[in-house]
């Protein structure tokens, strides 16, 4: 019997915190709809992935310790990002090979860390959302969510229940958009080429809305679509599932 009202710590993620607060509030609404008590631990900044993927292991360890200490007391840790959830769930333990105390703690945290949409669907058994969205959407499978956290069917299953929404697939929804954290500014030509290919694939679907579950990819794809003058609206999937798409303009869209 699962805990009737688990205490879920929301790992907001730095990009949602800085760029798209609405996603954080959408996550809270969805988690509460799924019967959870949501806590937002203070003092959270970043999962440390920029340091980890740049080879700065010590900084990554330091940030990881802070996250472990802040989030371990709760029943679950949930992030509206497959990438950050993947960092906690798949990589934190490997940072503490020489530190048995934190190794154990990191493993315990890893075991109860989830990406938001898969948590709602797989752990909380959510099958229906209370949301409406008029539009044809296409969904990009962000790499870490897909390959580290197994996020694939869950967002599609929940989107199917949004009234007014229909989903069309890209020809390559699982191909990387070219964001890759610091990759996008270290190798801009390659990154821009990759996101241009992605924009073509998105355009070919005829969808009017692009959804995904990771802010990094979304900023990248929205930025490219905007540069190309595309009218495709870009949003985090949680905004739509929580019925909050009317609360904020699409990513990269202005008020003019």
């Amino acid at each position, binding site marked *: 019997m699962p805990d009737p009202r688990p205490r879920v710590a929301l790992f907001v993620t730095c990009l949602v915190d*800085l760029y798209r607060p609405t996603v954080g509030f959408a996550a809270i609404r969805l988690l509460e709809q799924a019967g959870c008590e949501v806590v937002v631990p203070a003092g959270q900044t970043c999962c440390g992935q920029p340091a980890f993927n*740049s*080879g700065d292991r010590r900084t990554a360890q*330091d940030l990881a310790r802070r996250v472990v200490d802040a989030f371990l007391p709760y029943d679950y840790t949930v992030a509206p990002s497959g990438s950050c959830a993947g960092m906690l769930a798949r990589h934190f333990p490997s940072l503490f090979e020489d530190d048995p105390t934190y190794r154990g703690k990191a493993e315990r945290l890893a075991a109860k860390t989830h990406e938001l949409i898969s948590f709602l669907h797989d752990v909380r058994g959510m099958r229906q959302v209370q949301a409406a969205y008029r539009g044809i959407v296409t969904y990009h499978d962000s790499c870490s969510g897909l390959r580290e956290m197994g996020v694939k069917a869950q967002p599609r299953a929940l989107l199917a229940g949004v009234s007014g929404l229909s989903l069309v697939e890209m020809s390559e929804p699982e*191909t990387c958009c070219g964001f890759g954290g610091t990759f996008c500014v270290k190798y801009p*030509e390659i990154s821009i*080429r990759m996101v241009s290919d992605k924009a073509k694939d998105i355009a070919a679907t005829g969808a009017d809305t692009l959804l995904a579950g990771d802010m990094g990819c979304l900023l990248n794809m929205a930025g490219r679509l905007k540069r190309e003058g595309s009218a495709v609206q870009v949003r985090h999937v949680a905004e739509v599932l929580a019925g909050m798409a009317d609360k904020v303009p699409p990513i990269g869209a202005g008020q003019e």
Partner: protein
Amino acid sequence: MVHLTSPAFKANAARALADAGLQRALARSKPQFQAKRAKAAAGLPEFEALRDVARDIKNHTLAHLDFYLEEYAAKVEAAGGKVHWCATAEEARAAVLAICRAAGARTVTKGKSMISEEIGINDHLEAHGITPIETDLGEYILQLRREPPSHIIGPAFHLNREDWEKSFRESHTELPPEREFRERRDILTEARTLLRRKFLAADVGITGANFLIAETGSSVIVTNEGNGDLTQTLPRVHIVLASIEKVVPTLEDACVFLRLLARSATGQDFSVYTTFSTGVRREADPDGPHEYHVVLLDNGRSNMVGTPFQDMLRCIRCSACMNHCPVYQAVGGHAYGWVYPGPMGSVLTPTLVGVEKAGHLPNASTFCGKCESVCPVKIPLPKLMRHWREREFERHLTPPTTRYGLRLWAWFAQRPALYRLAAGLAMGLLGRLGRRRGAFRFLPFASGWTRGRDLPAPEGPTFLAAYAKQRREGTR
């Protein structure tokens, strides 16, 4: 040896992105490889389970590498062959040259071999008056064009049909210039006719090996053209060029890999030719070489044993990682600047030429993880690339802008109160500045981003600030 241009990866990549012919060739190969591999894997119910078995066989072999290599060498010698243990590329070149000289060789036919690229044997033989002739069709045209391969199993995948025709006309001047190349087969027929004479005239045949079998002392090659068989069967002397991690314990083990290799590589269930060679021709054999030499190369690989990079020694050179890599698909193999391209090259090249020269390669990855997801021996390629980044960071090889940027970011990220303050100010400002248009076309310090895409503007106040405000006001 292939000229090393890995330090110029960025310039190589920019050139590749602007090369229309290359882009056409890459666009053609991508759907071909990926769809075929997916279909082949789906068609074999135990494919996923075999990947685990294959990984475990390699791990076991690498844990007892000395034992299996000695067993293998003993079996080779028992079958009348000779093993030449070579610690370096230089030793391997010398060994091959000595064998060719002892055989009085003037021409040497060659099957496809990445080790031959790694040690640069063609240049070495030519410098000593011996003519090497590549017989794999792709390698053959690259030899005509004096280009290195850009892919492991499709070395000339960067070329289009008009490139083939042009090179053939320029090189085969003895053939009538008015001949026509209407289809792929015409190219094939011309190469086949010319190569047939070379096969018959060659004094020595050099092949690589996909596997070396300790139990029997056999070398295994797989090809689709049959050129490897003619290379190793017709000449008096057969040289197998192989690196130490090619050894597997038994014939049965080799069969596990054969079931994975072609499916992962080309999406075939099996390659057209799979040939096992054991020692020299015996009395009753209708054909086969009179001398059978194995030039067994280490070239730094034994140093990888016992390190995190040991996992890389499981690689069976199938090319699935590069066939599925979006970075490889964008820039092609030559941009990587050495013998081994794509994700496997981004891990292996730094071990073989030094991370100070090949440092770009493990960085030029989004860590999308597709390579690892298709690797038949489950090499954790992104993790190993990250290990290289860690070594670079430790050795201060990471570019200063990255280091300072990281240090500044880390300083704030480790001080949540200051981070909140700075983030609140910055996002508030950006949010106000970008509100009308919703995105920035240009921002100072963000030119890498804004060169080809806008930077979306933030909503304004950060989540944590807005959340704290709601809590204070009792609305949450």
